[in-house]
């Protein structure tokens, strides 16, 4: 029996069946959801305690070695390496900056969008949804061309003489220190700037879509009242709009952050090998060169827990600012 049969058994036609069959339908639904949505995560957790055996295979076990290796290295206590902690650090580093940039730039856009006519909003939403669903591989491809040394921005800067000008003014050495230039030209591959830029681009339409409901439900009469009382547009945004949507704003940052924790293609293409993230080493351990499934699973669990902790902190923050705002009112 394939699961396609199971699911078609609970198709809408059955939804209106007599109430007698209800318990069975509920049991089947629970079984399907638990099997496919929960069991894979449980497997990752279970395997993360497993052991690698030589020759690219692994066996069930109950050992904390994989986690120990993550935090202090395999040869602890003789030597300590923080290689994987470093990767976790970069996962957080990129994701935090990129999600904050995306929200800051998407906020005014979304605000203007919700002030438009319904038809215009629809057209913008089609555009945003289309770019949002575009695969990471295509987006990376686009930015790769734009930032490549041969035909991208570095070429434009060179041809227009800006590179030369930067050298004359002396800012070029500064760029080199930031890792944005090789001895002769400006370069973006590989650099932290390119990684973060592509990541914020990746989640930017998500940021708009996530802030859209809150901003579109914003009470317009409050804005008008503030305007009537003589507040300028910026004052209105600062004192009326931002405080009312602060919670969805923070919530959006956290959702984008968790989404970016797992981004893989961008990092492999744009980040320096020494500055790669946990998602990359999960992939390497499970499918790539190192082939150590239990260790990969352990890293995936750590990624998941990090995400969960951040979401929980975000929730806490939102609740606290929410209740303090209520207390003030």
């Amino acid at each position, binding site marked *: 029996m394939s699961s396609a049969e199971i699911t078609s058994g609970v198709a809408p036609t059955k939804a209106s069946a007599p109430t007698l069959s209800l318990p069975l339908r509920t049991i089947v639904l629970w079984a399907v959801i638990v099997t496919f949505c929960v069991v894979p995560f449980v497997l990752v957790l279970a395997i993360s305690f497993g052991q690698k055996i030589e020759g690219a295979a692994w066996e069930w076990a109950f050992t904390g070695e994989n986690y120990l290796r993550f935090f202090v290295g395999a040869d602890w206590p003789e030597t300590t390496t923080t290689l994987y902690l470093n990767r976790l650090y970069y996962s957080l580093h990129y994701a935090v900056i990129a999600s904050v940039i995306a929200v800051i730039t998407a906020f005014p856009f979304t605000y203007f969008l919700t002030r438009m006519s319904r038809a215009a909003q629809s057209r913008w939403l089609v555009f945003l949804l289309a770019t949002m669903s575009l695969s990471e591989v295509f987006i990376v491809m*686009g930015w790769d061309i734009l930032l490549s040394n041969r035909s991208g921005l570095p070429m434009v800067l060179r041809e227009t003489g800006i590179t030369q000008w930067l050298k004359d003014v002396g800012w070029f050495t500064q760029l080199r220190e930031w890792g944005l230039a090789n001895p002769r030209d400006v370069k973006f591959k590989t650099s932290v700037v390119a990684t973060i830029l592509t990541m914020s681009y990746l989640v930017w339409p998500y940021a708009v879509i996530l802030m*859209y409901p809150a901003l579109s439900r914003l009470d317009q009469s409050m804005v008008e009242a503030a305007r009537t009382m003589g507040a300028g547009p910026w004052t209105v945004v600062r004192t009326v709009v931002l405080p009312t949507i602060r919670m969805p704003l923070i919530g959006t940052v956290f959702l984008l952050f968790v989404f970016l924790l797992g981004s893989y*293609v961008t990092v492999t293409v744009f980040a320096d090998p020494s500055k790669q993230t946990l998602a990359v080493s999960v992939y390497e351990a499970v499918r790539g060169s190192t082939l150590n499934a239990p260790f990969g699973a352990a890293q995936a669990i750590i990624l998941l827990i990090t995400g969960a902790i951040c979401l929980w902190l975000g929730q806490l923050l939102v609740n606290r600012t929410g209740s303090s705002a209520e207390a003030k009112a």
Partner: protein
Amino acid sequence: MKTGSNIFMGLAAFVVLLPIVVVSAAALNGGRSMLFPPKDPTLSRFAEFFLEEPVWRNAMINSVVIAVGSAALAVLLAWPLAFGIWKQGGKGAQLLAGLGAMPFALPPIVFGVGLGFFWGFGGGLGYIWSGIISHAILFLALPLVTISIGLQSIDKAHLDAAATMGATDAVAFRTIILPQMIPYTASGFFFAFVLSFNEFIVMFFVSSSAYSTVTLQIFNSLRNGFTPTMAVAAITFIVVSIIVFSAVARFGDLPRLMGADQSKN
């Protein structure tokens, strides 16, 4: 304020379009390398992608089969979940829907790794059908949300009226609920379809290199550098997305699906 906002929105649109335009233009390159602006513009890459190169043609067929299959399956699974919450409500139904939406909310690489193990034990690794099921589960949250939004808009007074006039639950479902729900169901289907079409990391773990979709094929070729044929894939994908979402906007209420306020028009 008005001109300022227009300038800002125009600028944002420009930046969003920039990589897409560059990729699209690169598809016209006559040579083997991705240059912008394109050198010796030609359309032969399109023929290569759709007709001549079996690698790309097979990848395209796999992508379409998996996207259609998984979106349909996701809708079939989302219906009873959403209907359960709407009809009976209660903690159990909500928990069930929450668990169903979980794979979409967590980093996809973790779910991908988990499914890799899951199908490894279940014997589905490297088959198209397991890819279809995996994507259906991953994107279950989308039809779940659109169908739930749609069900909330149904006026329960209509159902009461139907019941008073002697309609059974089944008849009321067929004549009142189903017709109103078609746009929401279709939207959910298309959201799942487009995202499945573009998904990469979960499919990567589940396919186990036994077959490839277009996104996988592009990633596999990534190490050898990009070629203009890949750009054709990108164009195809964005065109499909725009058509699908335009259809959703045309036949459904896109601002409402995205959570806009109902009172304003």
